[in-house]
């Protein structure tokens, strides 16, 4: 006995119609909800920097390696105005020992401080000061080892980070900024802006310097200098 195919056709038809209905409702709902979807504008800076996590890399890019103390804040310095304003701090630095390169006994060292990231949305300007990844406010009571290059009459970083701080029990700390470098602005109820810069988020994982003693670091610098001289 042959079965009628009518019920089967009706069932398939119902399934197809249900699918079409679901699709239409989904598309309609998406359009309705899209009106309330938040708009997040994003503006960011990503720099190609010489990042060093060990002594060899620090030594390789440095023209001057010095040990001594910061003794005075001299002035803020506009490092550039375009694109995006950037400001540094100039300190005088007394050198106790020149580990590499020849410098006067007292030099001016620039610590790049922040970059002012500026963008425009609907003719309105927004800006955020993003602290540089190699910025660290110096402690005048402590000793430091710095890795530098020269720019006109001042000395500037040769790497990121470039400051080693020596504490009272001769333990060395690699100094860098761990700030998340993220600023948010609410433009309207459904609209916001996020400004981000460079940050050494997970740099601690690769920091091969912090915790070593001053004498270990000095030995390591000496060995790295020998390699640098051997293969310039």
């Amino acid at each position, binding site marked *: 006995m042959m079965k009628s195919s009518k019920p089967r056709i009706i069932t398939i038809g119902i399934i197809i119609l249900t699918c079409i209905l679901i699709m239409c409702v989904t598309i309609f709902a998406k359009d309705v909800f899209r009106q309330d979807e938040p708009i997040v504008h994003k503006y960011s800076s990503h720099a190609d920097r010489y990042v060093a996590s060990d002594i060899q890399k620090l030594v390789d890019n440095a023209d001057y390696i010095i040990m001594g103390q910061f003794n005075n804040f001299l002035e803020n310095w506009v490092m*550039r105005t375009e694109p995006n304003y950037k400001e540094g701090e100039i300190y005088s630095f007394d050198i106790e020992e020149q580990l590499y390169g020849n410098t006067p006994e007292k030099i001016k060292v620039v610590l790049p401080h922040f970059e002012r990231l500026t963008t425009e949305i609907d003719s309105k300007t927004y800006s955020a000061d993003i602290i540089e990844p190699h910025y660290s406010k110096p402690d005048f009571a402590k000793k430091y080892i710095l890795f530098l290059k020269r720019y006109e009459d001042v000395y500037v970083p040769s790497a990121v980070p470039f400051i080693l701080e020596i504490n009272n029990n001769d333990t060395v700390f690699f100094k860098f900024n761990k700030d998340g470098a993220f600023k948010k602005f609410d433009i309207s109820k459904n609209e916001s802006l996020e400004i981000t810069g460079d940050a050494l988020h997970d740099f601690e994982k690769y920091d091969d310097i912090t915790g070593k003693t001053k004498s270990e670091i000095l030995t390591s610098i000496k060995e790295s200098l020998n390699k640098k001289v051997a293969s310039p």
Partner: protein
Amino acid sequence: MYWKSVRVISIVVLLFSLSVSIVSAYNLNPWSWPKQFGQTYTVYVKYDTSDAYIRASWDTAVSDWNSEQSKIKFDLSSSNFSTLSTVGTMSDPDQSYYGSAFTSRPNNVISYFSLYLNTGNTTIVNNGIVRRSTANHELGHGMGIADITSGPVLAVMNIGRDRTKIYLPQQDDKNAVNTKYAF
């Protein structure tokens, strides 16, 4: 028979794990160009500098990327008047700073970028290979690829690379583009 199957499965799993660990060395930002399925997306770019040697470095880097992948095509020309995307120079005395990429991207869709080589850095001024390496790095950001911050990864996006040796997009960089713009 049983042990043969176990051995084959183990080898396949091992090879898969290895391939995943090699392929995933790159990092991707969550933003990208609005590329359509099956099509190459053209990014129109204009110069923001009159320095001939800097322009030549950008030209070379654009050509490097265009020949290494087919997902994004950079069209760099001084006659692209209406585009907001630019390549040029900046002057920053920080000698650890080689170049920079600024991107604007509502809801993670790139609308334009501004890429710079830092002519305040004497290495950028004096070494054409380092300029090329940095220009290729910044164009990588211009496609939404992120920095590789450490490790011996052979990639132009690795900020710890030797810029005199790694100046072209490497396999890892190409994998990044092909993953970001998979279709």
